[in-house]
Structures are given as structure tokens and as C-alpha cells.
């Protein structure tokens, strides 16, 4: 089992804002800091624009973990997008947990444009934790129910 876990490369989708975290991730690169390659970054104008449906769609499309990250409180380029987002995440998280969706697979961070080193850290940490949890098969099963049912009948 542990060998399997070591072999498992989690697929992580990161939803980040343009102004802070995306710039921070850029800085990670230009600072030549090495970090886990499991993350695919999707850039948004603001954390306020990160619709909760995007997170569900990422899981449905095969993500094992998700990162949501933007500007620290009071640093939002649009003043309050991250405050609105924070409220939404609080509520959304409660609902997902009640439905039995694995909220440990969604990691939220504030990463500023100056925090290139933090970005590398949070990605590494997320990858390690998701690797420990294993692939999100529960969700994939429901998302790919046609393939799953056909495979079961073969």
C-alpha cells in the first residue's frame, strides 16, 4: 500500500488570482525555486471570480486535490473580492462536508506577489497531503459512472 502511495502522483488544480498568487507563482519560477510539478494553474482576475462550480468541475475532471489562493485580506486588487470569496468558501465548505465531499482535498491559501517561496511550500505541502489521501476515486466513480458501469459488466 505504501509503495502504491509513493507511486501515486496526485493531480492538483490551482485556482489563483492574477494579481497576487499568480504573480507569486511567477516569482517562484524566476527565483528558480524547485517545487512539485503536480499542479496545473488556472488564472482568474480575482478570487471573487472563482465560482464554486469550478471546484466541483475540477474534481469531476479527475483532480485529486485543489488549491484556491489569492491576495491576503486587505490586499485585493479590487478591494473586497477576497473578502466576498472568503464568506462564500466558509459556507461552501460547510455544505460540501455535510454532503460527504472530502474537504481535506481543497486547500485555501493567501499567497502574495512577493511570496514566491511560500507558493513552492504550499504546493509541496498540498501534494504531500493529497498523496497521503490517495486518488479521489469516490468522486471519479460518480463522475465516470458510464465507464464505470460498462467496465463492471465486461
Amino acid at each position, binding site marked *: 500500500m505504501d509503495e502504491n502511495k509513493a507511486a501515486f502522483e496526485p493531480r492538483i488544480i490551482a485556482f489563483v488570482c492574477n494579481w497576487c498568487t499568480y504573480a507569486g507563482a511567477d516569482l517562484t519560477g524566476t527565483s528558480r525555486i524547485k517545487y512539485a510539478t503536480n499542479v496545473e494553474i488556472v488564472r482568474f482576475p480575482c478570487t471573487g471570480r472563482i465560482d*464554486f*462550480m469550478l471546484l*466541483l*468541475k475540477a474534481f*469531476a475532471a479527475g483532480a485529486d486535490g485543489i488549491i484556491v489562493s489569492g491576495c491576503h*485580506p*486587505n490586499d485585493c486588487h479590487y478591494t*473586497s473580492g477576497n*473578502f*466576498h470569496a*472568503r*464568506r*462564500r*468558501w*466558509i*459556507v*461552501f*465548505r*460547510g*455544505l*460540501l*462536508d*455535510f*454532503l*460527504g*465531499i*472530502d474537504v481535506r482535498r481543497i*486547500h*485555501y*491559501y*493567501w499567497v502574495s506577489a512577493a511570496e514566491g517561496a511560500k507558493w513552492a511550500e*504550499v504546493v509541496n505541502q498540498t501534494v504531500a497531503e493529497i498523496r497521503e489521501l490517495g486518488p479521489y476515486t*469516490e468522486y471519479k466513480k*460518480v*463522475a465516470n*459512472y458510464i465507464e464505470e458501469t460498462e467496465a463492471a459488466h465486461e
Partner: protein
Amino acid sequence: MNNWNKQIADMLADGTVALVIGYEEGSTPQKTRPLFCHDAVAAERLVMDGRCTHNLAVYLTKKELLPAEGRIGVVATVNVLKSALQLMQENQIPEGRFLLMAVGPEGKLTELPDAESLRQYIAAHPLPDNPEVAALIEKIDAMSREERWAYWQECLSKCVKCYACRAACPLCYCTRCIVEDNRPQWILPWASTLPNIEWQINRVMHMAGRCTGCGACYAACPLHLPIHLLTKKLTQEINREFGTERPAKGNVLSTFSPDDKENFIH
């Protein structure tokens, strides 16, 4: 004829109101159904008692059902009043357009012409919390996460995507809903488990902090799926996180506080 029926008949006759929405006897003695009274004669058929469970507030945003001119009376239950107030707070219905009326135990008619009178009446007539709903939520909370996922999967796999839950809810008033959008088509239109779950997540998230807990969604579901537990749970969460007070204009998720507390963002 009850005294209050007479009062309403008079209002229709003298033009105080152009239409009155209320309840009449239904097709079985256990049931009532919505009634649109356009004249004084029809007002005789109005009834009001514990069998009146439809949420009539759902009609208040349906312009095609309402006369263009004149005031519209509504013989309302407390649930209808709560929904109507929420609609006013969301600027969906103008304050003077509807004359909401409550019928007291002795058949006394109370007119509630504006948001403030509604607020006072609702505060004076609190609805008891349904202990069954609270118990069911506790039961689900006590399950392991895997059990909860299995429970909701099993439950929502039965949804037939009829959208009766949406149609019955007075606060689900968008004329274009995400489920009918096909670019992108985020929620697949056929009834299968994941799209069904996604549909409920969307419905409930869009209700966050707005749901008045009337239970019309659950009552309308032909499969009796306990979807009201989702909205109720979210209401509990919101009360715990942001307090039981709701903003007088707008709603919980259209505002924020710089002091909102969370412990999961690092």
C-alpha cells in the same frame, strides 16, 4: 361567509385591490389549493387554516399572472409573509404593490401593507422549529464522511430533474437558470447522480442566507427527497458563522465583514 371573506369581497368590489391570491378547498378534504380571486363572488371560496401549506409568495414575482395595474391582496400564512419580506429586501417586489393580509385565530384580518409591518408581525408570530428536521440533520452529522457521501449519493440518484423544487421556491426567481445554460453546460441536463448532486449544490448555494425555511421545495419534490435538509443545514452554518441577524437589504453572501473568521485558509 366569514367576516374576513366579506371584508375581502368588499375590497375587490370597491377596487381597493384588483386581485386577491389565497387558498380554497382542494380536491380532497385534506388539501387546499391556491386561488386567484378576480371578483367579490370568488372571495367567498377563500379559506385559511392549517391545511394551507403552498407558499403563495412564489406568484409575487410572476408578472404574467398579475394584473398590470392596481394592488394585489394576498391572504398569507406566516411562511408566505416571510418569503414576501425577503423578496422586498432583495428589491424583487415593490413595497406598495402587494397588500399582505394575515387571518388571526378568530378570523380577524390584519393588513400588513409594508416591510416594517411584515417584520413586526413575523417577529410576533415565530414558527416553531421542526424537531424532525433537526433530528435528521443531527443523524447525518453523526455519520462518517464516507457514510454521508453514500447517503446523499443514494438519495440524490433518485432525483428526476423535474425542477419542482426550483418552481415551488419563492426565492428561486431567476428567469434564466444555470441548469438551462449550455455554454458552458456545467450541469448536465439528464438525471444521473453527479449532475443531480451538482444541481442541488447550486440550488442550495444560491439560497445561502436567503432561504426562509418554508419547506416548499421538499413538499414539491415528487420523490420526497430531503433536500430541505441541505438548505436548513446551510442556514444553521450561516447562523453560527455570521449570526442570526440578516442584512435589511441584500443578503449574507452579497456582503462581508473584514472580521469574518475562518481557520482553514493558510
